[in-house]
Every structure is written in structure tokens, then in C-alpha cells.
């Protein structure tokens, strides 16, 4: 399974790992590590550099290649060991494609990804099989992702059987069934459910089966693709807490893909925001949800209806729809819907230059030419905050302050110091 290396910087996957500049954004300097990663001694579990996934559009005479749906368009990030990296974005932003490409359900167009320093893409046969054992995925649809004709023991045991060898003896039915039972137990289902079929379970239970299937191979890295969005609220919280417990129990690292901002906030340590195939912002969860610096993240946070009528947010209602990923706007993909672009008097650079995904301090990465110009007051009124809770306990009359404490330093200085 090879992939086109049409992009200039994508090396053959079996070469020793050499960091390269992500091909589609030429403004990114070729540094030693993934963009913005603090130079720590510890190697992150997963590193992704300049990942590109285009789906070709065939059409016209003789079904020629007439264009591409740019589902993922040059994404670079890393996931530390034991961390939950959340990935949010609206439908069609490429977050699910990113997950599927990472786990090799679909080959990448270009780019580089490493698991534990070892390249992921371009592996075949035995090597690929070995890799698959270390990376697993949980899908959104708990009905569609389980074969209705298989009992639970086979659904969970199938992966074990495929990975069986002399050492683990998973080929032995007894050993396998014991392991299936252990993992059913771990996800909160009864061991004796193994002979039942998927239709005998509720949605939440099916999702638990999907989790057990992924965990049975003892992976290091788990991609959760919208694992709770098909579930009811009360069941959703059960699954979220289960995922957090399992992370502790099995030392897991998650890439948690979802569209629900509050769910991602709850489970993640760091969060990335995607828009039209690109990462536009990546930061620690607290930082991103309290001090977003990309106009899109600010608008996204302001749009979430809050289950608290007392939270007064100023909604930044974005006009129009997300443009088609087959023909994304020039320059910054977001400029067609950007409120800051309008506020700044439509600066030309937004329509001509692809903004660099740069560090504006403390590992907070933003792809916006004007990230420092995002007004603090707008952010403050758009983002609900709980930083006030400790104060207001003593002052019942205060209500929710209009402007919560926000990093007050002039953003421009901070950015020039650390941005380059």
C-alpha cells in the first residue's frame, strides 16, 4: 500500500524518520519537530506531519480526474503518551477522514505519521499487522459497526484470531473466550453475554462492545470517532466516564474526534479545531476554551447553546455555510465567513496567503494572520466561563460578570516574542 509522493517533501515511508516541512503550507519552516511542539526529551506517541488526504473527483469525458475533495489538507500535530487529544469541527471538516487515514482504513495522499517514532504509512503484510495491534478505532454508529450475524464472542474475538501467534495463543478458543470475557467485564458488561447477538443490546451497550473489541488487542493508541454522538445524554455520560476510567486502567492514549464542544472539553487534555481540512487552532483544553485565538473557534464556542439560562453569551452568528472542500476559498479558508476579516476591513492578506500554523506562546497554535487582533472583549462575551465561581459564592449579588478575567497582556508583544 503505497501512496503518491507528488508532494515535494514527502519521503518514502521506510526511510529513517526525518522531520520534514508539511508540504501544503510552504510558510512553515522546516524545524526539527512537529510544529510548535515544546522541545521535550520525551517522544510523543503519535506524530503527524503534513497529512494530506484528497478524494479524487472523476468526471467528464472518459471519467478523467477533474478535481479533488480536499478532505484533509496538510495537518500536523502530535499526541503525547497517556493524553487525550480532542479534535472538533463541523461536519465535512475532515476530522473523521483524519482518523480513518491515521488508522490506515484509507491510504493518505501525502504526509508522514509516526507511532512511537516508527512510520505508520506504507507498511505491508506482517509489519502492518503488528502496527494494527497497537492502534484501534471506535466508531460512531454502534449498530452499523457490529456484524448482526455474529455473536459477541466472535465480534470481539475476530481481531484476536487475526493477531493470534504462538506467544499469545489467541488461536485457542478457550484462551480467546477468556480474554473476551475479561474485556466485557472491563467495559461493564456481563461475561456471560458472549453468546448473544448485537440486536439483543441497547445502544449504550453496543458502544461498550465496540470499545471492548478495540481494547481486546491491548492497543496503545485508540481513535474514538464520535463515540457518544449517537447516544442519549444519560448514556453518553456513562460512556465518557468509562473511557476515562479505561484510559487509567490500560494506559491508553486517545484521539477523540467529536463535533460536540462540551463533550470534547470534558474528556480532552488538549484540543484541536479543524475547519475545511485544516487545523486552525490547537491548545491545552483550558487555554482553548477560555482564550480562543482563532476567529472560528471563538464563533464556534459562542454558538453552543448553554444549559444554563444565566450564562449570557454574545453569539457570533457566522453567516452562510461551510464552503465545499472541493473548491476551498483562496488564502485563509475561513475568510469567507470570518467576522474578524470584516471587522479589520477585509485585509488583502487573508484572501491571498494561507496563514501559518504558528505558536503564539505556551504551545498555543493558531492559523490566523490576525490572531493577536482578536479582541479580548469579544472573546470574553462569547465564551461562557466558570472562573467566576469561587468569587461569586461570597457575593450573591454579583451575577455572572460580563468580562471574566482574561489574559490581559497585550497580545502583540507576546506573539512577537514567541511566534517565530
Amino acid at each position: 500500500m503505497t501512496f503518491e509522493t507528488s508532494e515535494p517533501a514527502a519521503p518514502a515511508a521506510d526511510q529513517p524518520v526525518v522531520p520534514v516541512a508539511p508540504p501544503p503550507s510552504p510558510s512553515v519552516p522546516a524545524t526539527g519537530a512537529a510544529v510548535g511542539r515544546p522541545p521535550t526529551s520525551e517522544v510523543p506517541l503519535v506524530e503527524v506531519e503534513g497529512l494530506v488526504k484528497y478524494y479524487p473527483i472523476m468526471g467528464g469525458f472518459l471519467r478523467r480526474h477533474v478535481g479533488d475533495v480536499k478532505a484533509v489538507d496538510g495537518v500536523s500535530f502530535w499526541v503525547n503518551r497517556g493524553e487525550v487529544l480532542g479534535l472538533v469541527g463541523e461536519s465535512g471538516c475532515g476530522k473523521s477522514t483524519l482518523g480513518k487515514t491515521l488508522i490506515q482504513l484509507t491510504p493518505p495522499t501525502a504526509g508522514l505519521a509516526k507511532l512511537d517514532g516508527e512510520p505508520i504509512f506504507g507498511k505491508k503484510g506482517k509489519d502492518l499487522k503488528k502496527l494494527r495491534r497497537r492502534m484501534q478505532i471506535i466508531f460512531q454508529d454502534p449498530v452499523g459497526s457490529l456484524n448482526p450475524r455474529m455473536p459477541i464472542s466472535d465480534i470481539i474475538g475476530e481481531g484476536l484470531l487475526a493477531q493470534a501467534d504462538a506467544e499469545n495463543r489467541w488461536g485457542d478458543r478457550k484462551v480467546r473466550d477468556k480474554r473476551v470475557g475479561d474485556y466485557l467485564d472491563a467495559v461493564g458488561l456481563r461475561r456471560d453475554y458472549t453468546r448473544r447477538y448485537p440486536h439483543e443490546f441497547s445502544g449504550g451497550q453496543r458502544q461498550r462492545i465496540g470499545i471492548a473489541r478495540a481494547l481486546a488487542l491491548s492497543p496503545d493508541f485508540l481513535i474514538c470517532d464520535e463515540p457518544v454522538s449517537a447516544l442519549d445524554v444519560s448514556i453518553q455520560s456513562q460512556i465518557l466516564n468509562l473511557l476515562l476510567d479505561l484510559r487509567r486502567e490500560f494506559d491508553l492514549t486517545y484521539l477523540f474526534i467529536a463535533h460536540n464542544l462540551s463533550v470534547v472539553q470534558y474528556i480532552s487534555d488538549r484540543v484541536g479545531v479543524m475547519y475545511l481540512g485544516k487545523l486552525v487552532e490547537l491548545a491545552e483544553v483550558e487555554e482553548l476554551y477560555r482564550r480562543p485565538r482563532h476567529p472560528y473557534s471563538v464563533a464556534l464556542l459562542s454558538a453552543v447553546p448553554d444549559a444554563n439560562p444565566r450564562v449570557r453569551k454574545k453569539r457570533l452568528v457566522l453567516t452562510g455555510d461551510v464552503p465545499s472542500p472541493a473548491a476551498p476559498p483562496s488564502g485563509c479558508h475561513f475568510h469567507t465567513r470570518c467576522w474578524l476579516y470584516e471587522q479589520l476591513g477585509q485585509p488583502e492578506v487573508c484572501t491571498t496567503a494561507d496563514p501559518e500554523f504558528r505558536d503564539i506562546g505556551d504551545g498555543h497554535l493558531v492559523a490566523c494572520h490576525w490572531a493577536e487582533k482578536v479582541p479580548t472583549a469579544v472573546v470574553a462575551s462569547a465564551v461562557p466561563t466558570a472562573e467566576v465561581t469561587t468569587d461569586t459564592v461570597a457575593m450573591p449579588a454579583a451575577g455572572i460578570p460580563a468580562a471574566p478575567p482574561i489574559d490581559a497582556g497585550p497580545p502583540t508583544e507576546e506573539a512577537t516574542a514567541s511566534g517565530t
Partner: protein
Amino acid sequence: MTTTTPPPAPAPTAAGAAGGVASVPLLSVRDLVVRFRTQDGTIYAVNGIDFDLAEGETLGIVGESGCGKSVTNLAIMRLLPKPAGRIERGRILLDGQDLVVLSESEIRAIRGRDVAMIFQDPMTSLNPVLTIEEQMVETIRAHRTTSKEEARARAIELLEMVGIPKPETRLKAFPHQFSGGMRQRVMIAMALALDPRLLIADEPTTALDVTIQAQILEILARLATESGTALILITHDLGVVAGMTKRINVMYAGFVVESATTPELFALPSHPYTIGLLHSIPRLDSDGDEDLIPIEGRPPDQRVEPVGCPFAPRCAWRIDDCWSDNPGLAAIDGRAAVVMTGPAATHRIACFNPPTHDEALAGRPLREGFRPAPPPGTLPEDTGFEGLGSEEALEALEPQGAEHSPLLPRDEALLDAGRDRGQYPGDADRDSHR
């Protein structure tokens, strides 16, 4: 059982003409029971609910899938799937006119004209082979004697109202040429075409992205206010109703378990299920350190006739009576303690053992030595309640609800007492989900 008396239905007036009656609510649902007869047996979908809706009021109906919120509204529109779905009992009075007994042609005249509905999936509710113009003109002309040109002008005006750019040209488009958000705008435009007095929106934004959802909610809120249309908003998302409605009914397994004004519901949630829901959703305004407290178990099988309180098997506050009797909706004051009667009672819950305010904030019972009553026929030792809140959750949640409540003075001493009280036995099991 309920404190509101059903308004008598005096001489049914023609629905459109009875605009001036002040005392009669626009819509009043009384003891509505809906059942589905299927091959698997009877489904007890709605089990006797009552509510009123005044002219121009906005009401939210919240609940999880299968709680009967959509069925209630299909029943109001008389659109229950036939022949399985049936209104077994009860009255649905629109301006005093009982919709349940109307003939098919009579109800058809009311649908669209007096009551309009917006569905979750705009693609399946629009006809894919007709242009928007054909569909809108057809709707308008079905109820009003206007020329095609007048109907078309009205359609353009409506599309403009919901913010569709270049409505003259977009009228010629087919539904598939619109994006999801645009289709939902078209649906809203069509629903408002005949100036209905009641608009029912069933999960209008569930299929949409957050930024589009914000647009649609804004339009709905603006149009409902401008035109004075009463709105019933059905959703599973407590966040959506929080900003949109004046009053909220929380439904569970075909019952209304809590009914309150929106500020009351969020400041003083009083039914264990509502409290559970509020503790189950991660909130953006939390500081991220609070643990979610899931509601253990899952909704009841609706093929079984409900006995006792439907929430009892999942409830941490259940007492022996909960297993055998169904508590009716009763008015309470803010502390869920004293039962009040009279028209001032805006907050009603169906619960024998209402959680106190502190317990609501904590999301778990705080009473010394209290254990949820075991199911009849088992020993008390068999049940232990798991899924309890942490001390941090208790502390972090306090200011949100209580501090800013305009409804009641705060009792600091009571809260402190609750905080100092020991952890509920079994708290150590919190992390164990099995």
C-alpha cells in the same frame, strides 16, 4: 392529581375566529394517553399527560429518545402512524375545540393553518421532485383563495424573512440544491406561510452543525416573537431550550416528570431525573474538573405497562412507595418541600421523595444513612447506589444554580450543613462502573 382544573370546553368555536378569548389557553392537553399496538405487544408511549400553552407562549419539551415527546406532538397534529398509533384517552383542546374527535377533513383544515410543524430532517419533509415554489404555492393555496401570483409573492416574502438570499431565483430550486441549514429555513418559511397560531418544532436543529444551529435558533426565536406565534420546541438538548423557551416540561417514559419556568428549572431542578440530566451533560461553563454523574441503568421497556414511578429503577432517592404508586404532578415551592396550590404554582414535579436543593446541587442523596429502596421482594443489602458526585462537583456547582436565583433567598447555613455532611456510603464505588 393535578392542581390545574381542565377548562370546560364550552361551545366549540371555529378555531380561527376565537382569537379574543383571554381565559382559555390556546392549547390545553388533558390526560393524553397514546399507545401503539404492534406485533411485539402494546407500546405505552404517552401515559396521561397534562399541559397548557397560552397564546404566544414558548414551551420546551425535553427528554431522551423514546420518552414520548415527539409522539405527544404527533398526537396534537393527529399524525400518529396508522393503524398502530392510537389516542386511547384524553383531550387536546385548541381554542376549546377538541382535536381528538375531529374528522380527517376537519383536522386537515387546521393543520398548517392553525398548527404548523417543523421536523428534524428537512430533506425528508420536503418533496424532492417539486421546486420550492411549487411546494410553497401549493401550501398557501390549499388554505387560502389567492391567485398563483399572490401566493408566489407571499413565498418570496417568507423566504426573505428566514434569510434566504435572492429568494426570487431560489424559488426555482429543488430541495437537494439547498444545504441542510437552508432547507430548514425553507421549512420554517413554509410553516409560517399561513400565520399559524401554534408552531411545533420537533428537534429542528439536531441534524445541523453548531454554527448553523445558532442561525436557525435565532430565526425561530425572532419570528415567534414578531408574529406572536406560540411555540412548542421539542429537543433532547437542554442547552437549546435554556435560551429559547419560557417554560419547560421534562418527560420520561411517557410521563411529564417536571414542569417549571425555565429559570426555575435550571436554578432549582427538583425531580431526580432532571437533576440526573443536568449532571450528565458536560458544560462549557464548567472549569473542567467536575465529574459527570451518569444516570445508571437505562430507560424502561415501554412494552410493559408502567407501574409505580417510571424512574424508580434508576433513581437514587426512591422510597418504597415509588415502586408501587405513580406520583402525580404536584406543585412545589423552590425547596421542593411544601406543596403549594393555586395558580401561582409554576413549578410542579412528580416525585414522592423530592431531593432537597443541596442534593440537587450534589447530584446525590446527602441524608445520613439513606439508601434507595430496593425493588419489592429483595433484601435491602442487594442494592447499592453507584454513580455519586465528588466533593468538587458539589462545590463547583453551587454558585451556578443557587447564588443567582432571583426566586428565593439563599440559605447559607443549609448549604454549609450539606457540604459538611459526610459522603454518602458507597461513594468509594464511584469509579467502578461495573
